[in-house]
């Protein structure tokens, strides 16, 4: 890639990551009563994570993946539902992580591309949150556990990085 284009791609990727950091914090603090700190990747918890995926289409297309460590999923679900952690079931955790993925996906994409027209598919549980080469990916540490976001784009706009 020519040097100018490479620098431009790096700059845009920085913008993408800043949007992800800002929006993720806003979502988690406002509606899920926890905070998130962007951190280096450590995917040792991925094998037991709760993962949700959402396909999106429109002026941008691709897939949004959210992986949440088990202990973080339980803490987030109990905060969202207003229940004690011991009262929170596995099903509750799954349902709340689906909702969190829906909110994060919509908020991240529409903040990054406010002029766009996008439609989001229904979130689904399952799969692995591992980032393919070229995906936009960010890991966060929570007060309890960890969380990772990945955006795999089918178009060039979000496939850098």
């Amino acid at each position, binding site marked *: 890639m020519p040097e100018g284009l490479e620098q431009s791609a790096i700059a845009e990727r920085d913008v993408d990551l800043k949007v992800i950091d800002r929006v993720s914090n806003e979502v988690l603090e406002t509606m899920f009563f926890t905070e998130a700190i962007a951190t280096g990747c450590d995917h040792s918890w991925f094998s037991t994570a709760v993962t949700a995926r959402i396909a999106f289409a429109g002026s941008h297309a691709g897939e949004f993946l959210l992986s949440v460590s088990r202990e973080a999923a339980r803490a987030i679900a109990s905060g969202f*539902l207003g229940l004690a952690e011991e009262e929170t079931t596995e099903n509750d955790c799954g349902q709340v992580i689906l*909702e969190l993925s829906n909110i994060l996906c919509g908020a991240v994409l*529409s903040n990054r591309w406010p002029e766009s027209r996008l439609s989001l598919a229904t979130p689904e549980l399952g799969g692995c949150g591992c980032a393919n080469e070229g995906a936009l990916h960010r890991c966060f540490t929570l007060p309890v556990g960890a969380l990772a976001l990945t955006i795999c784009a089918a178009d060039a706009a979000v496939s850098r990085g």
Partner: protein
Amino acid sequence: MAFSVLIVDDSPVMRGFIRRVMTLSGFEAGECWEASNGEEALAQLREHRVDVILTDINMPKMNGEELLRQLETDAQLRSVPALVISTDATKDRILRMISLGAEGYITKPFTPEALREELERILGEPHA
């Protein structure tokens, strides 16, 4: 005065969260009905008196856009105000929902205060 509310969202945990947030914000809903899509919402509206509808957009069977269209064509339901609560913050979507008759639009994430302010604005009075 307590207002009756219809919450339309395909996520049961989100419907529960909205109920809880209304209580946390000090908004006392008299009766609170729930529906998981536009079709169910229309059925609830024909059975119960509702002062305000809180609706999501992306839902199976009948989405929030179609629900607003149906409300506009129904002489009895046209006057029931609808507040859209959605993750979609794109200008295009917000303008489209307002043009279809939504009285307000809140993007997720939202605070209890933001929801209360919108409900007070739509219902026309401060709430205890």
